[in-house]
C-alpha cells in the first residue's frame, strides 16, 4: 500500500493529488458562477443580467460545444486542473448539460474531482 511518507517527492505529490479533493468554498462557487456568466455574456453578445441559471445554453444563447471546450480550458488553467477532456465527455454523456445552472454545477464537480470525476457514478 502506498504511504504519504515514503517514496520520492513526486510520488508523494501524486499520492496527495490523487487522494485529496479540492474543497469547494463559497468563494470558489461565486468565482465559477461569475466566470460562466461573464463568459457567455461576452461570447454570445448577451446582456449578462438576462442570463439566469435556467437559461438554456443552446436554445437561448445559441451556444455550442466549442464554447463549452473553451470554458473548460479557462477553468483548467485557472485552477491548474488535472483532467482529460474525454473524462468530461464521458461524464457529460450520462449527465447532459443544457442550462447555465447545470453547467456551473458540472464545472464545480470538475474542479472538485478532476480525473476522478467518473468515480462519482460508481
Amino acid at each position, binding site marked *: 500500500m502506498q504511504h504519504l511518507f515514503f517514496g520520492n517527492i513526486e510520488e508523494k505529490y501524486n499520492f496527495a493529488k490523487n487522494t485529496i479533493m479540492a474543497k469547494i468554498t463559497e468563494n470558489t462557487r461565486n468565482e465559477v458562477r461569475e466566470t460562466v456568466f461573464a463568459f457567455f455574456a461576452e461570447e454570445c453578445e448577451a446582456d449578462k443580467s438576462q442570463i439566469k441559471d435556467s437559461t438554456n445554453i443552446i436554445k437561448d444563447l445559441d451556444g*455550442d*460545444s*466549442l464554447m*463549452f*471546450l*473553451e470554458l473548460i*480550458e479557462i477553468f483548467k488553467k485557472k485552477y491548474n486542473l488535472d483532467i*482529460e*477532456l*474525454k*473524462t*468530461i*465527455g*464521458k461524464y*457529460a*454523456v450520462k449527465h447532459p448539460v443544457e442550462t447555465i445552472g447545470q453547467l456551473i454545477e458540472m464545472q464545480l464537480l470538475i474542479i472538485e474531482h478532476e480525473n476522478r470525476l467518473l468515480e462519482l457514478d460508481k
Partner: protein
Amino acid sequence: MAEDRPAFVFPAFISDYREDPARDIPAFNDVFQSFLKTAAACTYEELLSFNPVSNPLIENELLNQYLSYIYGCSCARVLLNSGVIPGMMAGYSMGIYAALFIAGSISFETGMLFIQKAYGAIRNTLPHHHYGMCGVIGLSEKDIREIVLNSNLNLMIVNRNSEFSFILAGDSFHINVFILKAREEGALHARSLGVTIPYHTNNLTEAADEFSETVFTADVHSPVIPVISVLNQRRIDSVDCIREEVVKNIHTPFNWLATQKEMFSQGIGIFTECGPSMALYKNSKFISGSGKFVKWDSLFKK
C-alpha cells in the same frame, strides 16, 4: 511589413449567416451583388435568387461552395478597397480559390470554374455517393486513430483544426459508426458535416487527375500577396506551386492548426475570417499563440 498587416483567411463552406454586413458597410452589398451577377452568368442563374434569410442556398454542396467563394471574395475586396492590405492569406480547404483570387493569381471567373470543374470531376469519378465527413472535438489524435483501427473503419483524418479538434472523411456508414464510438470514448462533440464528398482523401485521386486538366490550362499568375499552403505550410509563390497546390488540395489531408501557427510565427498578429460565418474565428481560440482574431467588418476603414 507583414507584421503590421492582418492575415485574411477564407472558409470553404458556409454554416450560417452571422448578420448582414451591408447594414454597417453599405459598400459590401454593391461588391457582393456585382460578384453574384458575374458568378450567375458563368455558372448557375439560380445564384441570383440568393437571400441569406429566405434562400440561403447552403443545403446544396456546390452552391454552398460558390457562395462561400463569392462571399469571401466580397469581404476581402471591400477591405482592400478601404485600404486594408493583408500581409498573408490562407484558404481553409476549398477556401484556397478565394485566397488566390485576392492574391491576383486567378480571375474571379477562374475561381468559379475551378469550383465547378472540381465538383464535376469528383461526381464523375466517385464510385458511389455514400461518403461523408465529420468533426470531432475533445479526443486526441491517438484516441481517434485507435477508434478507427479497432473498429476497422475506412476513414482518414483529413484536417487538424486544433489540438483536440479534427475532421475525418470517408465512407458514410463508417462515419456514423465513428461518431457513436467517439461519443462513447468521451468526445465533447462529434457530428456529421452534412457533405457527401470525402474531401482531402485518396478517394479523390482520380478526380484530381481529371481536374488537373482544367488547372493546368487555366490562366494563373504568381501571387502579389503571400498565400500559405494548408498542405505543407510553405508559401505558394509560383505558378507551378499554385497549380500543384490546387490539384493536391482535392485529395490530400491538410493541417489548419499548423497553417495558422506558421502565419503567427511569420509575424502575423491579427487574423480575420473573410466569410459570413465564424467557424475559423471560433476555432482560433484553441490555438495557443495564434494571435488575435477579429471580425472582418471591424477592420473596415470608413
